[in-house]
């Protein structure tokens, strides 16, 4: 006779903040994290220095945002670096979260304390997310400080607001990769396997997915007669496919948030630009509307991946 599932007693979140505090302390003191922080600071200093050299020539609007987005050969812009550094940091924070406990044989001990598994997993995820947010905020402050120091002007209110949204988008982007590496750390018993799986998926989405999306679009929606409709529908399909990758969503969010002159992320027809004054910046609210689907997409992907990890972890036997 199999008993029907009965409700559990007690809060599933008991002990959550204890786990968060412990895991964050672990992250912040780990050699792995220090190394990545060092790398981040180095990149921030390098790219911002280059950007400042470039900017000084002519006075413009949104100087601070340009600090983040200006690139000078051979250095990419700061945001370009973030696009691949944030996933790496997130993966580094999560790839051994659960299997590491298994291998150290600490999991049965921890779960024998009066907490539910829910608190442990969410605690680990939140600790990773907070750590990421902490590091990114520190770097954001560093950049603002450097900007004030070198440019000699304080940032405008709108710039601060836009760069804060950018910070938020970056944390959400990191959340996707953190949740993904958490799932792999539950699936694979060896941390090295989990790390490699996360990194290969990241490589695939970063390098190959754009190419694959283009090829798929050509196959699924071929341009047979050269009609504009055909070309447009192929371009739209390619974009839709590309947006399955969190990298695309993040790149688009950053583009619209940090470059106020960007008014559309989809292909648009000349008729849609009727009466538009090209080159004028959009207000923040409009830019946000533009990237709202991208931002919610990143958050939704994070939640979905975490839910998957949650289900897997709840069903896992804790015996080695």
């Amino acid at each position, binding site marked *: 006779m199999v008993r029907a599932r009965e409700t559990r007693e007690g809060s599933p979140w008991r002990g959550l903040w*204890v786990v968060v505090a*412990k895991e964050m302390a672990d992250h912040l003191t780990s050699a792995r994290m220090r190394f990545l922080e060092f790398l981040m600071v180095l990149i921030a200093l390098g790219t911002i220095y280059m950007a400042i050299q470039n900017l000084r020539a002519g006075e413009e609007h949104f100087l601070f945002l340009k600090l983040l987005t200006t690139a000078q050969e051979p250095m990419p812009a700061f945001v370009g670096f973030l696009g691949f550094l944030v996933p790496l940091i997130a993966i580094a924070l999560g790839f051994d979260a659960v299997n590491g406990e298994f291998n*150290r*044989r*600490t999991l049965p*001990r921890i779960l024998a*304390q*009066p907490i539910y598994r829910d608190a442990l997993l969410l605690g680990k995820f939140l600790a990773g997310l907070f750590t990421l947010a902490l590091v990114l905020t520190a770097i954001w402050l560093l950049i603002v400080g450097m900007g004030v120091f070198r440019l000699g002007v304080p940032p405008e209110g709108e710039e601060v607001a836009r760069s804060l949204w950018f910070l938020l988008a970056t944390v959400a982007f990191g959340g996707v990769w953190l949740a993904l590496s958490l799932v792999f750390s539950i699936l694979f018993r060896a941390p090295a396997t989990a790390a490699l799986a996360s990194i290969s998926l990241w490589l695939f989405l970063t390098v190959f997915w754009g190419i694959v999306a283009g090829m798929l679009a050509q196959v699924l929606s071929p341009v047979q007669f050269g009609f504009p409709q055909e070309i447009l529908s192929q371009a739209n399909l390619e974009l839709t496919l590309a947006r399955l990758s969190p990298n695309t969503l993040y790149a688009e969010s950053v583009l619209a948030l940090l470059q106020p002159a960007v008014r559309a992320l989809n292909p648009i027809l000349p008729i849609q630009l009727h009466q538009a004054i090209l080159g004028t910046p959009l207000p923040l609210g409009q830019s946000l509307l533009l990237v709202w689907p991208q931002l919610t997409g990143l958050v939704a992907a994070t939640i979905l991946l975490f839910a998957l990890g949650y289900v897997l972890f709840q069903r896992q036997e*804790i015996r080695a």
Partner: protein
Amino acid sequence: MAEVVIEAENLTKRYGDFVAVDQVNLRLQAGEVFGLLGPNGSGKTTTILMLLGLTEPTAGLARVLGYDPQRQPLQVKSRVGYLPDQVGFDDELTARENLSYIAKLNGLRHPTGRIAEALARMGLGEVADKRVKTFSRGMKQRLGVAEILLKRPSVVVLDEPTLGLDPEAAREFLQIIRDLKREGITVLLSSHLLHQVQMICDRVGLFYRGKIVLEGRVTELAQQVLGGSYRVQLRAEGPDVTEILKAVPDVLSVDQREKSYYELEARRDVRAEAAHAAVSAGARLLAIGLQEPSLDDIYARYFESVGANDRSHLRIVGGA
């Protein structure tokens, strides 16, 4: 009648077709030390995990201190101390920091005093601020007990507590278990090191292929399995006294292991008669002794009989 603190009724765990634990019935009274014995993979650990609510039984009921480990795991886990087999700690943290984390997970208000007390009791006061990675296996095991003491539990569950310890550390550990019993704590332990279990357990349950096939006090089991036989060892130089010893009343068999060493199997304690017979026959009696029935014998004999007969034999003594 003493209070029942652990109760299992037809507890069953299946993994697909494999039955890991098959309708186990258990009753532990307050203050007793109960040993779960059996070869590796016979279902001991799975039974323990079900009692703690760390894995879900396929069927059957468990009660620990009156709580259902499935529905009220937090209640059970805050009152029961569990030491998993091959316990692991966070190697980068000190002993004190490891315990502090566990104390917080248990929601203890002012744990500092309790932690120091528990560490001192386990003889770890001097190394409290050393990282756990410098600890020996025996020290980690004692740290595990210190962690259990933190909760001031009324029930303690130990999974293979002496496995991998050197003889000195194992002896110390057995003393720790005796001390727990003296404080009135109920102890459930699993082991396959029979002579150690015999020294400390009030009752034992013998696992074989997921079932408890024998259960009771060691002396009762000896009666049951060894048929109430006594083994007398006799060392005597001089003439061969095999035939003379065989003639002693109630002696069942005589086995001359070496030239001057005999082992007698008898229905009662025949030491006096056997000594008299040997001396009368002109032998020089050097030593005579009665061998206590050991769990090793019971175990070996039991599995001999299981191997010799068909498997239905298992049920004869099942669920005693």
